[in-house]
């Protein structure tokens, strides 16, 4: 083999090695959220803020956290689109509106959704702890091969963006609920709260029990007493 042939051979071998290396190191797309100033970015941040990620209190599984995100979205939507007979929207949501961001921010910084509010100029805002945790989750999600963190953040953003495009595709698991114990209820969930020790969620809210999957993502969901 002459010198030129040797060089060509080495070059070919080198190219094969580089190709193999590239094939062994796949490129993962970066996990990102839409900007907090966008409606779907803001909503996605709420869904992430209210649900546990691996290692956090309340973590059960990816499916459980996704289910919680979905049901939280249903609560927000139901406060607009499924106000039960005998109720006024303001009783459920502390606001009268068709805008889901109004539902989220109602009541100020310690309103219906703790930490999510509107500034004096009307701009939706969040308390400092929200981006602090989110930054940590995104850093973890973008480490190496996509796992739970990446999929959960993508799921939250996907749910949120789809909602503003056309609504919610997945079913509301509480839509058909008619009784909790001996209490007739409206069905659907209209509030969520961290699952902790309190006697009563207030108003005509009725805690949905474990038998009806009322606890998701460390949150307890509540429906409403039926009013005649």
């Amino acid at each position, binding site marked *: 083999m002459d010198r030129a042939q040797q060089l060509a051979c080495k070059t070919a071998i080198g190219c094969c090695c580089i190709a193999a290396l590239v094939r062994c190191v796949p490129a993962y797309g970066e996990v990102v959220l839409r900007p907090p100033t966008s409606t779907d970015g803001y909503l996605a941040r709420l869904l992430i803020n209210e649900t546990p990620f691996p*290692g956090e209190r309340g973590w059960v599984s990816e499916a459980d956290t996704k289910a919680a995100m979905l049901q939280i979205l249903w609560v927000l939507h139901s406060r607009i689109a499924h106000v039960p007979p005998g109720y006024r929207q303001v009783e459920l949501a502390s606001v009268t509106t068709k805008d889901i961001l109004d539902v989220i921010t109602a009541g100020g910084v310690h309103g219906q959704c703790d930490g999510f509010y509107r500034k004096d100029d009307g701009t939706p805002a969040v308390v400092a702890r929200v981006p602090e945790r989110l930054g940590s989750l995104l850093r973890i999600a973008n480490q190496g091969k996509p796992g739970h963190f990446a999929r959960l953040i993508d799921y939250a953003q996907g749910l949120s963006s789809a909602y503003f495009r056309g609504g919610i595709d997945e079913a509301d698991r509480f839509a058909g609920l008619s009784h909790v114990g001996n209490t007739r209820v409206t069905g659907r969930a209209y509030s969520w709260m961290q699952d902790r020790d309190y006697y009563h969620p207030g*108003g005509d809210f009725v805690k949905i029990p474990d038998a009806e999957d009322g606890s998701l993502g460390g949150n307890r969901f509540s429906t409403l007493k039926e009013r005649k």
Partner: protein
Amino acid sequence: MRMVSGVSFQVSGLLIAWLASSCVTAPRNAETPAPELIDKTVIYEVLGHLYRWHLDEVDVRTATKAGNEPVWVRQRHPDLDPGDRSCFGEMLLPVLGVRVLMKKADYTIEELNTRVVSDRYKIVHVSRAGVPRTLKRDFVPVRVSGPDLREYLFTRRGNVTFPDDALIARLREAVRAELVLHFQDVTEAVPRGEQVVHMAPLSPVANELWVFSETGRALIRFSSDLDLVNPDVWEHARVSVALWDIDEQVVVSLQEAAGSNAYLTRDQVGRALYNCVILGKRIVLEPLEQ
């Protein structure tokens, strides 16, 4: 350990009266829970935790009137991710409507190459709910020895355990960081000078720690699926933080803020303050403005 008169002997006696001696008898179709869930020591520790953090005068009165009732226990099997070998269990006190969800974690956070594993069941949450009678078909009643439980509660009524110096150092940083974040969002001026906080004792059956900021007027709860003494919790920020402004986020009843997830009841705050200030440890932090 510092002895503080906390749990009264009389209340301990009422708890014992309510739990008489017997044995575990499983209903015909009930799965026998893991031994760790029906272990006497675990049940005593859970009851001790409930007494410090959840039970009130009404509960004691209710329990007294009900007489001897067992603790009901069952294993739970939620759908988990592949490779997750965590175990879940539940304790039920039907007379009080108190349910305790417990978890013995065993999974890996792949992104962090961190193993989340507990050597024992820990409380995930305590909740109040009506108890349908059908639930007892799935639970196993556990009776405990009255004299044993009385001795356990009485001799430990003021016992407190605090984190070691290394964990306290991390908590100092974490509390300070949370207060700095908090004061970015409020109109009140950042309190000047040294910051006084009160740290509640650790619980052997819960991965959570409460801190009351006296100068910041805030209650902070740190919690995790990992044991808080595990340095990985802090290194990878796998600790959940909840902060409540006690001037703005306390109501007597959630009836006053129906539908909101932003409030604590005065009862809840009172119990937290008792644990932080009376039973807890006073710590001074560096000024927030530094």
